[in-house]
């Protein structure tokens, strides 16, 4: 592990800037840093997660020009290149979950890939989990380094960090920094233990199998009772990725736009005939929960949730997914 004093972050700032943009945590979203001081952020949970950088709310896929009966088009790939500095383990894990959908299989997403390949994740341990966090439920914690390229921890007035992936190690080895001291590493271990224990871990043992047997349960009515059916939870969730594709038309030209969509909207599955396989909110809720805690694990052996708690904070009616998971766990299955 290496060390650099927090007062001397310019020693690593240049190397990061050579990569491209340097995004840092601000209160509402990740924004581009202009100075090395901005690397020090007091914000622990950014409202708009890093998903906003990799999968923007809107991006044009193609632009086309019409000429009578003829059409020509070209790809328009929105690029993003640089370092996301200070990304906490929950969001880094979320990005790895997004990778499972966009980078695997035949329909590999060239748009997402172009950005993902050129973005380095410089993670920082989360030092202030709040009362909505439950990340440890999913087998990792506020000090987990595995989803980042470089991982660091702020210990007193020192930033300790190390390269995790090849990309990260390459960057680190060219930095003019010393090795971390023994007592600092000891302190790191103590902090890791103390902070990780602070996060309330839910017991969701067996939830995947339980959900599979609850398709027809009455619980969905109760769970969705106070839900308004807006899309706030899905937009701020770092692992939600469902999108819509629509054309924007102008005289003689236009573009195909990919935008975020939400499974909570009625329009999400509305067919041309007028038939809707999920006409009521309770079916959409069932699909949302099942997707995160049953379908995603079936496809990728990972839950589609990282326990960051943003959905709880942002929900207009404070629906708490932790309470829902516990309700599901405790619900008896009627034969």
């Amino acid at each position: 592990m290496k060390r650099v004093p927090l007062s001397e972050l310019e020693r690593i700032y240049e190397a990061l800037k050579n990569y491209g943009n340097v995004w840092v945590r601000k209160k509402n979203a990740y924004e581009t840093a202009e100075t090395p001081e901005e690397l020090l952020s007091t914000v622990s949970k950014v409202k708009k997660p890093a998903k906003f950088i990799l999968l923007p709310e809107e991006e044009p896929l193609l632009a086309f020009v019409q000429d009578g009966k003829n059409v020509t088009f070209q790809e328009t790939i929105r690029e993003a290149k640089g370092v996301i500095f200070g990304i906490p383990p929950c969001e880094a894990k979320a990005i790895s979950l997004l990778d499972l959908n966009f980078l695997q299989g035949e329909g590999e997403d060239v748009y997402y890939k172009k950005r993902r390949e050129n973005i380095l994740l410089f993670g920082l341990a989360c030092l202030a989990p709040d009362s909505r966090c439950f990340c440890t439920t999913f087998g990792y914690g506020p000090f987990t380094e595995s989803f980042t390229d470089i991982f660091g921890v702020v210990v007193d007035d020192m930033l300790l960090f190390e390269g995790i992936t090849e990309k990260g190690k390459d960057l680190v080895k060219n930095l003019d920094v010393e090795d971390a001291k023994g007592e600092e590493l000891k302190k790191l271990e103590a902090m890791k233990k103390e902070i990780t224990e602070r996060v309330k871990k839910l017991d969701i043992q067996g939830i995947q199998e339980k959900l599979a047997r609850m398709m027809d349960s009455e619980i969905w009515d109760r769970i969705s009772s106070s839900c308004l059916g807006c899309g706030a939870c899905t937009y701020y969730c770092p692992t939600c990725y469902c999108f819509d594709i629509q054309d924007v038309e102008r005289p003689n030209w236009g573009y195909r736009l990919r935008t975020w969509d939400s499974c909570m909207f009625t329009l999400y599955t509305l067919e041309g005939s007028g038939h809707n396989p999920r006409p009521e909110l309770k079916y959409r809720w069932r699909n949302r929960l099942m997707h995160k805690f049953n379908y995603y694990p079936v496809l990728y052996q990972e839950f589609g949730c990282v326990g960051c708690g943003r959905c709880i904070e942002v929900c207009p009616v404070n629906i708490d997914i932790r309470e829902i998971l516990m309700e599901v766990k405790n619900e008896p299955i009627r034969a």
Partner: protein
Amino acid sequence: MVEKIREIARKLLGEGKVDVVLGYEKGTGPLSERPFVARTVEEVEKLTYSPFAIQNLATYLPRFNNNKVAILARGCTTRAINVLISEGQIERDKIYVIGIPCNGVIKTRELRESIGEEIEDVSIQNGEIVIKTPKEEKKVKFEDWLNISCKYCEYPNPLFYDVLVGEEVKPRGGGYPDVEEYEKLDEDERWEIFEAEMSKCVRCYACRQSCPMCYCEHCFVDSTEPRWIEPGFDKTDLESWHLIRVLHMAGRCVDCGTCELVCPEGVKLLFLTRKVARDLKRDFDYVSGLNPEKPPFFGEFRYDDKGDFIL
């Protein structure tokens, strides 16, 4: 007051007079009082009420159309119910109204964000909101954090009820000074404020879904034929979305403020809705939700209606 609400709810559910009670319960984390649908006598124990209960419960009424419902209703809630009745969405005899005079609701999201740290406990004492964080205790004035519609509210008491919980309160009243302040600014300043607010919108539609008046199954935003608004975040689309929604609210919005209170990005919307409400009152002597028998604002016209905006 809370105990009285629970007592009434217990009786109603226990005697089978209603299927569900629409009220509020404590949310996860302080400053959060969220809508709660109580279906059994046991669940009644969770019912509470406080100035942190921001959501207008009338929004939930159309979805319980097949049940007999009891609803905890403030002044603005009963106005919303009147509008829903006048528009044929619900029937009066299917609802049991537990009237509750209201002293205003707090801008909970804004307050939470301004505190910044973890909030451990909250209480209201002597006109102050006392907030305990791990480091200290902060006190803020209740009046300073009132929802703006509540600050100038003329109808805090339920307009009708089957049972009343608590003493009726005096309306704070005061008209629309916030709208008048905005109007004093010059055109460029007003446009700047408008553009700045609208650019924050992420099109999550929390405002639309939380509004009791937005019950359309097919919202104009989703229309492709004709395409009124395009997808995406072009500022024209964001601004049109809100302007058109406000116009659809004309004569229907009951100024409960829920839309602005629930917005995750803190987009200010009330300066638009309240301006329309003020114009309707001043120019057409129309206030929404006072009488369910009266036709909706756009559902009638009088020969002596002001027409000076047409020319």
